[in-house]
């Protein structure tokens, strides 16, 4: 009993030393609404449907309505209805475009498979995470909302990869077969 108590006393003093050391270190809490959250480049937040910024197809939508993202999605939360590009209305390079494109964010698990599946880099995951809303209907994101750019209250940390947040392991493939 005595020996245990003496050993125990010493152990308690040691643990008190450890806690005292942490007492003098800066707290790691991020005061969220006032301070931005620190995220890494590959953070998967809300999706965004992109356009071509430059090159021969500048201004056209990237989405060609192929539904690969919908096929790959584990929770099947993407709905794609493709329409055909006509001579007057051409929204994307190639034959088809996405006439209806909806993602049910209530089902989405933000895994990023849609981003990996997309052949043109149309659907990407940006860093917006504050997605709470007031009704279930409003969380089924339609195409218009997905086209909006995101404004995350975050700082993107640098992990040395110069990643711009787009998981594209296919490079920038040209969707038109004659240019492949």
């Amino acid at each position, binding site marked *: 009993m005595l020996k245990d108590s003496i050993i125990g006393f010493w152990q308690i003093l040691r643990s*008190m030393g450890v806690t005292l050391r942490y007492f003098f270190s800066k707290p790691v809490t991020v005061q969220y609404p006032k301070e931005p959250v620190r995220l890494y480049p590959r953070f998967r937040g809300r999706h965004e449907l992109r356009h071509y910024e430059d090159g021969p197809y500048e201004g056209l939508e990237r989405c060609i309505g192929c539904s690969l993202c919908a096929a790959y999605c584990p929770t099947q939360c993407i709905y794609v209805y493709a329409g055909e590009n006509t001579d007057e209305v051409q929204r994307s390079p190639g034959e088809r475009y996405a006439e209806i494109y909806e993602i049910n964010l209530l089902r989405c698990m933000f895994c990023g498979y849609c981003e990996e599946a997309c052949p043109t880099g149309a659907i990407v995951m940006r860093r917006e995470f504050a997605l709470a809303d007031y009704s279930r209907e409003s969380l089924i994101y339609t195409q218009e909302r997905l086209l909006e750019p995101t404004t995350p209250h975050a700082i993107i940390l640098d992990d040395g990869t110069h990643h711009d947040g787009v998981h594209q392991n296919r490079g920038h493939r040209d969707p038109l077969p004659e240019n492949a």
Partner: protein
Amino acid sequence: MDWVGDFWIPVIKAVVIVVALLLGGAYATLWERKIGARFQVRYGPNMAGPFGLLQPMADAVKAIFKEEVNPGHVDRLLFVMGPGISYAAILITFAVIPFGPQVEILGQEVSLGMGDISVGLLYLMAVAGLGSYGLVLGGWSSNNKYSLLGALRGAAQMISYELPLALALLAVVVIVGSLNVSTILDFQGDWPMIVLQPVGFLIFLVAIIAETNRSPFDLPETENELVSGFMTEYGGIKFALYFMGEYTAMVVNSTIIATIFLGGWKWPALISDLHPLAGVALFLGKVVFVLFLYVWIRTATPRVRYDKFMRFCWKFMVPLALINLAVTAVVVALV
């Protein structure tokens, strides 16, 4: 009868002291949350008011607005009295602690300390015993097997740890020769008692932490996290009273330790001689230090299993306190 000196001054002092203890108990909860948080590398409450200083007020308002539920199966009178007895016992403990020298306020000589009883230490032990009544009554009146068991465990813990507490105090009495708290304070002019009684201080510290059902010894209340145990049937204000009572007990016990072992408001005479209120500031500093110790020990130690700490009390603390007493007596007799 001297109305001012014998009546008004004590009454006003009592009111001020009780209000100060109430506020102290409330802000002790904030102290523990913020200092405990710093040990855990996070901030404590900092949203309610600057630095979270209005948090206890927010908690009090919340508790007041909660629905008062008096369950049908409880013994109504005892149920309501339980927290009250517990809290009252804690408040009256402070009566024998002097917290400053005689000061002159508005032309009247006022001694800072409620009273000067010649058996101050005996009074402290007696009132500490009263505290366990509130616990037992709370558990018994809840008419609930689990509350009863929790209350019995808590009461057994409190009673067992009164022994090493009293024995440590006895060693102090042997050195000083008096039960009067003011005399003990005067005795510490050169060195605080902790220098003469290091083992006694440790025994007293551990025993008083166990008395308040705190930190490593909080099994009666924190088994299954706070509810279950004697506080199960309590809600709203009554629960807040028990909870606050525990923190007020923490504060009052810190004042006891500061006075008896750390030299109270007198010890570095350099500082306490500067100005009458310097003694009060010194006293407050020591109380804050002991409160820091309380929180530090809580964050650094794991909870002790009930049978282990009962064994620890009876097989280690009591013999150690007796040995401490014997050695002290022998040394005093020889010197």
